[in-house]
């Protein structure tokens, strides 16, 4: 109980967002370009944090599909900003040792001569500690 609690609190703290403000309108999911790739949808993210089911979130594929495009953040009528919750869950994962989603040895095969530095830098930031 206390561990679960502290993780939910951690997510709220990192994201600075209050899931209780959500009125469950679904505008986040209606705006999300990655919706179809996600197993837990943006609006569900909010409910999961509310319900303190953090384990499901950290195991979710969605963490790595979110583009941080801020569409949900821009349009959320209740200032819940699901994108921030997703990023906070991602932070919880990558801050644990060895949990990086992007491993150094897989990089060479992912890049081509034109790959801009920006792409690597950004991916590193989002995927790794």
């Amino acid at each position, binding site marked *: 109980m206390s561990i679960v609690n502290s993780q939910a609190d951690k997510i709220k703290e990192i994201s600075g967002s209050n899931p209780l403000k959500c009125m469950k309108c*679904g*505008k*986040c999911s*209606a705006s*999300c370009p990655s919706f179809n790739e996600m197993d837990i949808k943006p*609006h569900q993210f909010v409910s999961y944090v509310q319900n303190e089911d953090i384990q499901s979130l950290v195991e979710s594929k969605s963490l790595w599909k979110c583009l941080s495009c801020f569409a949900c953040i821009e349009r959320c009528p209740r200032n819940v900003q699901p994108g921030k919750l997703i990023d906070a869950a991602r932070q919880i994962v990558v801050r644990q040792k060895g949990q990086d989603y992007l491993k150094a040895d897989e990089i060479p095969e992912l890049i081509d001569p034109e790959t801009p530095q920006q792409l690597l830098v950004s991916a590193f930031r989002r995927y790794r500690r």
Partner: protein
Amino acid sequence: MQRIGVFVCHCGSNIAATVDVKKVAEWALKEPGVVHAEDYPYMCSEAGQSKIQAAIKEKNLTGVVVCSCSPRMHETTFREAAERAGINPYMVEIANIREHCSWIHKDMEEATKKAVILMRAAVAKVNLNTPLKPGESRVTKRALVIGGGIAGIQTALDIAEAGYKVDIVEKTPSIGGRMSQLDKTFPTLDCSACILTPKMVEVNKHENVNIYTYSEVEKVSGFVGDFTVDIRKKARSVDMDKCTGCGVCQEKCPSKKTPSEFNRALNTRTAIYTPFAQAIPNVPVIDREACIKFKTGKCGICEKVCQAGAIKYDQEDEIITEKYGAIVVATGFDMIKLDNYDEYAYSQSKDVITSLELERIMNAAGPTKGHLERLSDGKAPKEMVFIQCVGSRCSDDRGKSYCSKICCMYTAKHAMLIRDKYPDVNVTVFYIDVRTPGKNFDEFYRRAVEDYGVNYIKGQVGKVIPQPDGKLLVRGVDLIDNKQILKEADMVVLAAAIEPNKDVRKIATMLTASIDTNNFLTEAHAKLRPVESPTAGIFLSGVCQGPKDIPETVSQAGAAAVKAIGLLAKDKLMTNPCTAKPDELMCNGCSQCANVCPYGAISYEVKEINDHGVRETRRVASVNSALCQGCGACTVTCPSGAMDLQGFSNRQILAEVDAICR
């Protein structure tokens, strides 16, 4: 020395659960002047009041302190009870130990301590209270209704029927308001014009009603029973007495490009115009900004074609000053601007419209003569999508925090009407919740779903994407299926939030009526006085007070009328005796107090003053207690402290300060 009784109310458990009422009563007995203290479960009840009255008689009390709810609730109750027992009502003070204490504190010890201090402050004040006698002021038997929509019309009719004179001031050229723009009304699908126009005619011909259209309230002074109002009658440029309403001028007017306000700018109107066919009065106005004659000096066609000779280019604004006993605000609402909601492509596509625009499209007198068609290409739509809660229920700073209340129902209405008239058109509604609290409302909504096959999808729309072929791709979510939905639509209708009329702030300021953060006028009590403003003599009718549908608006309009009638029926009003009073011995006659008095209640007279045997003729302030409303601005301005406020005297307030800081 006063003989004070302290009465501590439990308010059931409202107070007693957090404040040790017995202890408050116990402590009260230690205060100077207190000769009696008791507690009782409901002080405001008949039995509670009797206890106060009995104590007054038995113990010869000269003052009373009731520790209870806010004085805004029961000060009058207790003062009247005390008066019936033979002491001056203004010898009673309330210590607010409910709203300001028991309801906001959790710790019993802390709350009890605070309650004791609040009691002490009230006792300290009562020790310095003096009996006060209210004066009288007259009531002008005429009411003013600001706004000529259905709310204003109904209020005016009801007041007029009771036999009092009423003036309606309407900003636009015709009465009728928003309701006149509607096509049909829920939940019975009556034709809006069919039920509204008879009322418009009735109010227009009523002998007790006088209507100023194309007019605005410019200045308000005075107070309950005796308001003085300046009304600006804007120049119509048409003589109302001569015009026959034949309409030739409008046919011939060459300036035809002004967006029609009535049709929500979906089409245009002429410079000389009546907003709609059933307008009352049926007298056009010239829009001087659009009129060629006014812009260039050339033209004058309307004048030439008018056989009645009613066109008056040189007409000027007129200021009418009138006295009123009561004022009813019925300024209504508008839809919010959708500038902040570009994700719905309102400004990018003509086929994304608001619900009010749809009303005009559906209306036979509207821009498409009642044919449902796309404004971009005139084609009949096959797929229509309605989006709910656009700008309502938002806690970001883009929209409004409240529910606009009418959208769920009018959307069901639109969906039903479209399915009825155009069975081949598919209608989809994206909603968050469907809210239908009202008689026959939910049944109405269910009919839309069950009988008319309207497709309701629980979930919002994220974006409306105009396509190259003119279609609108709607990307929404179905929260029940947990799927993102891409739907091609021909038209998208946005249920934009409603907001109070833009002018309401200005009007509220003139009336000194309070207004909330959403610009809705505040009622005197949210539950018990919902049609009165906290400012005496000001009443609220319709959406200016909060979102409402037509039946609610009409009920409230009637209620506001009854309240106004109740006021007008009185010949005299008791005035607040808490007025300013100068000590002539101290007054310098410096005029500073008169400078800050908002009511012009202070004048100066040169008179002989006898200061302990020394006679002197000099200038001193004098307060007209019928005009003074008791704000106290003068008391602070007075350098010598000669001016004091009865009921809130310097000594009384300082005694409270001392008691609190003791």
